[in-house]
């Protein structure tokens, strides 16, 4: 298991990941409008499974690892911008 990323690393990564999501999904909002701890699914940003696969593709190209739902909880990874950024920080190879 890679070491857990520090809160500072995650904080630093979040704006970049927010921008990536907005670009991948063509959302009409500013990166700062994605709240760090609001849910990405459902009530928050309202993402669905199509969006999640699109994000997975850009994440894999940008950070050099493949998302998995078998060994890590898909719902947990996409729980919030912070959760996704934490997962990326712990798995990235690029």
């Amino acid at each position: 298991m890679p070491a857990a990323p520090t809160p500072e690393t995650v904080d630093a990564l979040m704006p970049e990941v927010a921008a990536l999501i907005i670009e991948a999904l063509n959302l009409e909002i500013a990166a700062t409008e994605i709240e760090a701890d609001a849910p990405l699914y459902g009530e928050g940003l309202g993402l669905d499974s199509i969006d999640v696969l699109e994000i997975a593709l850009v994440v894999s190209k940008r950070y050099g690892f493949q998302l998995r739902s078998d060994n890590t909880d898909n719902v947990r990874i996409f729980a919030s911008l912070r959760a996704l950024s934490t997962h990326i920080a712990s798995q990235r190879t690029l």
Partner: protein
Amino acid sequence: MNSLPLLDRKRAPGETFAWRPEGPATVGDFLAAAHWLAGRLPAGDWLLNLCEDRYRFAVGFAAGLIAGKTSLQPSSLSPETLHQLAADYPGLAALCDGETETGNLPRIPFPALPALAPCADVPEIDAEREVAILFTSGSTGLPQPQRKTWGRLVCNARAGASVLGLDACPHNIVGTVPIQHSYGFESTFLLALHGGCPIWSGKPFFPQDIAAALAAVPQPRLLVTTPFHLSALLAADIPLPPVERVLSATAPLTAELAARAEQRCNTCVEEIYGTTESGQLASRRTVDGPAWKCLPEIILTQKAGQTVASGGHVEGEVLLGDVIERLPDNKFLLLGRHADLINIAGKRTSLAYLNHQINAIPGVVDAAFHLPDGDESETPRLTAFVVAPALERQQLLAALRQRIDPIFLPRPLILLDTLPRNSTGKLPREALQALCAKRRQHD
């Protein structure tokens, strides 16, 4: 009584029925589990089987069959749908193996299966019995129940297995589609019962999950998927184990994507055409050309521009939502959907239904959904134009989420002072298209 067995009697009790991460379940294990669970289901005529794991779904469905229940399989699980099901089917309970929200419906957590001695008792089921109800959203706005008898389902499964040649050469199936919906139900679950094909228990989602699931089952392999998942899998560009066959449905594959998949995976990509109302109707190998070939015994007839399917496993006559050109030799071309019908990533609905739902939200004065022209992607998105002076965008989206499947949520939702209705009160498609174009210029 004309009856048919739960599963193909040629299957030996020791053969694999399902591959699971913890090891294979044999036909004998499956039968033992089904009999065991049948005695533990609560009373009631209906079962909402929400198990995501294909093996647990299969055990739950078979247990329901043995216990005399009918399986309800809605197209979405929105709070509205759950509410309606609870009202229409008294005593309904939901068999769950995950966190799925079930509203007010009682939950039956899928029990941990004890170690059971393999069983060789294959139950016989009355062919005339209604065993499953699959729901479509229907163009009238209300979910339409499509009732399936056991006889029709078995006939459907055998026709599907035969047209793909799986009866002669069973494949190990990995499916990316939900087992409860028409396509996944026919092409994973029914093929496991009456097509001789062992199934992978999981529902892999990310490309790497699909690669791992394929690697977890022996050759020959059949991947049951959709254009959307297939396109994501190819875009990921990861190593894949050999996949002998790929089956796609829910929306037509482009010849380009099919050719790329065939080359990249050294595989054969076939498509199934069908509807929830009729079950599967036709198939094609996409790279061979655009024509579809009807399954044996399926007949298409045309009246006044509409196409009707009948024969074989089709119950009565089913009106199809697609514009079809018939060709000789029981073949046909799909020319597109009738204008009102929407298909996004395999989920179907109609503009009439969506418009009904959005206009029913308190505070909405006028509203219309629109599918913009010129979206050539695998997954087009809807636009909604809304007049609702007292509501914020977020309130509107939250209210819509209660009513419709998230896939149909508008992106974007455009707030206006009035809609461009003409003198007769109609909303011309061209006017909505012009609004979309105008908006794009501002971006």
